């Protein structure tokens, strides 16, 4: 599972990065890598079976806190 995730990410890099380098889109490259890093961490955690807290529960708590 984890190897699949890594493979997918390598695939994404192989697709996007050469074009960005050729066009010298450095800023875009940085944003891309940053986002990809976030995505990578999240999906690796998910693949390893890390239990994330429920997102909508979090929003519920937040909304109730603000309204109070």
């Amino acid at each position, binding site marked *: 599972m984890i190897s699949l995730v890594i493979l*997918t*990410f390598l695939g*994404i890099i192989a*697709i*996007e990065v050469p*074009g*960005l380098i050729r066009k010298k*889109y450095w*800023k*875009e*490259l940085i*944003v*891309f890598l940053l*986002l*990809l890093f*976030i*995505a*990578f961490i*999240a*999906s690796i955690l*998910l693949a390893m079976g890390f239990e*994330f*807290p*429920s*997102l*909508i*529960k979090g*929003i*519920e708590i937040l*909304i109730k806190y603000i*309204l109070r």
Partner: protein
Amino acid sequence: MNLETGKIPGYQLIFLIMGFVSSLSMLFLPTQPAKNLAWLAILVSIIEGLLFASIYTALALRFPGKTLVEINEFILGPLVGKIVSLGFLWYFLHLASLHLRNYGDFFTIVYPETPLIVFLIATIFVCALAVKNGIEVIARCSILLVSLIIFLYFFDLFILLKEMDLSKLLPLRNVSVQDFFKASNAVNSVSFGETIIFMMIFPFLNKYVEARKSLLAIIIAGLLIAISAARNTAVMGDLLSIFQYPTYETLKIVDVGDFLTRMEIVVSINFISMGFLKISILYYGLVLGTAQLLKLRTYHPLVFPFGVIITVLGVINYGAISELIPFALEIYPLYSFPFEIGIPLFLLVTAVVRGLPKKTKGDQI
């Protein structure tokens, strides 16, 4: 700084919005409190939806050629504008993941043994392809898909005629006013209010005035949903309230001459194509908005990373489907309030009061 070179004509906007609005709504709407009056609640919510949409179009027409992210910065200044835009981007991201998850959940019911993630990945991949190709392609897909759906819609209606019992729509005074408006509010925030995303798409219209057509699209889509809700109630009656996916169950009933039986596959087709449209549009708005926020020269490299993030968020959105309906009814209208109406209204009022945009030489459209 031309992130998107495509242009879409006005009629395609109608298709886009129809697909966007009726996507989820054909399958699942938080109308449970309104019981047999779901259809009426939807009709009422159309009015709310029109109100919202007219605010969006007014704002869009005031700033032709500018997306929501750009309008934010224009009105609120670079710093505050960016923060507000960030909020919107989060909202789009969350919405896309929420819909993706909802979509996946539906298919885990049809395919109970297949893991959820498979549906999420397969779907987001096709959506990513569409987003990569730009708004023009999404709009063209919407023409074909929405035409197909409308055809299937009337087909459904036709084959269900036999099973309908209109008296199940009565009585009219069955629901308390509170519950009724709770339902119509929830419907509005789930289906019509989310058209805020089109603030990211209005600038790519051939003629910006045609943004007004979004109102027409909302009316048509709203009527379609309302009729489908009425149809479901007329077929299933009170039984509807126990089902997760009313339309799906309704079409399971079909039995025309022992041959056309179990047409729920039609619902799946509906849902796949509409879900694809809805997620693609949200996804596109998100990616484009991020690129505009960060002043990038292209949005293409952002597509896949965001795709992964949407998928992951989709998985961790909620544990069980039972969390979703109370969320859609109670929390979601509050959560979406600032994004769907609060901030747009504030922007519009500020723009009107301050007389923005000020006519300068550079700014002629």
